[in-house]
């Protein structure tokens, strides 16, 4: 898997994640800045670091599961690992555009 293929898979994952909305704000989690990192490694291993708008939000587990499910279904992904982090904490400034 060369760098171009990894970059293409990263982009495919990012696009797939756009179907997941934050239920409260109603915008997709990529444009909200909730996806901190998408790392693709050799053999189609994808590692995602994500956050939620509010620490302790009851929707956190659902969002994490949704990201995991979504990434597993992206063609080319053989293994997906999703990590929920609050470092740094999300701020509204991380949104792509005003919500």
């Amino acid at each position, binding site marked *: 898997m060369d760098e171009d293929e990894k970059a293409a898979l990263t982009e495919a994952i990012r696009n797939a994640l756009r*179907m*997941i*909305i934050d*239920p*409260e*704000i*109603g915008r997709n989690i990529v444009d909200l800045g909730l996806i901190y990192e998408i790392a693709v490694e050799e053999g189609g291993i994808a590692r995602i670091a994500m956050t939620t*708008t*509010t*620490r*302790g*939000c*009851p*929707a*956190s*587990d*659902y*969002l994490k*599961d*949704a*990201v*995991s*499910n*979504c990434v597993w279904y992206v063609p080319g992904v053989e293994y997906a690992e999703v990590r*929920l982090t*609050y470092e740094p904490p999300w*701020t*509204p*400034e991380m*949104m792509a555009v*005003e*919500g």
Partner: protein
Amino acid sequence: MQGATLSRWTMSYFALACLMLVAGQGLMLAGYGYPAVAVSAPETLVLVHILAIGWLSLLMAGALLQFVPVLIARPLVGGRFAAPALLLIVAGLGALVGGFVALSGAIDLPLALLPLGGGLLLAGFVLLAAVLAATLLAARPLPLPARFVAVGLSALVGAALVGFAFTLALSGTSDNLLLVRLVADGVDLHAALGLGGWLSVTALGVSYRLLAMFLLAPEAERPTSRIVWWAASLAIGLVAACIPVVLLAASGVTALFAAAFLLTLAAVLLYGGDVVHLYRSRKRKQAELNIRATFAAFGALLLSVALLNLPGVRAGEGLAAVVYLFVFGWLTGLGLAQLYKIVAFLTWLEAYGPVLGRAPVPRVQDLVDEGRGRVLFWFYYGAVAAATLALFAEASGVFRAAVLVQLAATLGLIGELIRARRLCIVPKALRAPVGMVRPHLFLPTFVSRR
């Protein structure tokens, strides 16, 4: 697991709370309690406790079981006690109301219902407070909103203890002189601990977090917010200090109360400044209806606390009208406004959380119809203002007419909550994706899914 999950019994607390709100307003409409009889009459006590315990306290308890874990980003400790606490509180309220009815002489019931009710309520509230306190203790040092909740829980236990002591004296179970003094001179502090310390201080604290969440505003702890906490805590401390003063029949209660109200006014003014700051720094262009409807409640809070600082009002002139504004304009207005959002949010989590990422789902906002809600809130607050003025003017006919409108608006808002639970408003294309879980109206989902 980083924090909170769905609180299983919160919706049951909410459903019972709404029923009690309807019952309380229904009784007022029927002319039961004040102003037809005296403020201190047993009939009025029935009404007051249905509203303060049945409606407001159950609402607050259900909300805290869901949102304390959000405030501290840790799971609830001892959540299995939420249902027993609810049963104890509801049974206690039933017995207490039965005791007041016996006291009124309307039905021949044993007066022992009073201490039974007081005891059950004390047990229920202590159990609830213990669950929430254990949850908070695991998260020290506490963030500021959680510290408000801690003060509120202390006031709840204080109010329940004083209330239990009242029932012992009122039922004749004990003729201890100290209890007799407490009943004679301690009603104000019981009410201040309950409506002010427990319900209002807790609401202020939780609202700091919820407003920031819903408005997408920065959650920085401002120095003014810390002063609000100190002022509110000190005010509650002064009210609590009135208990030994009353028991010893010493003087100073009036001065302590005056100082507590002054501190409360300062806290409310600073809190208002904090809310305006949060609103102005929001990233969300359009504040949703629950926020807009909350602003009217904040106005009622400010007005009623300002009026309570007038010595004439505290001495009894128009006091019932001010308390009405406080209970229905501030606490109930805030409660209904936040329920409007929280019910939709929790329903979304139950219904669509499990299919998120697998199918297109609606937004939380799609579960409500803000157009209808807005009209209902206008009617509600308009009716509260009219009812308050009618009480000031001692126009009982106008008061009941205003209560009729208020009750109709409340029923309309409860109808909107039911429509949200039933997913009636969600666009058909998004309503029922495969794997979606249709929530029960008010019972926990796990009951029928085992």
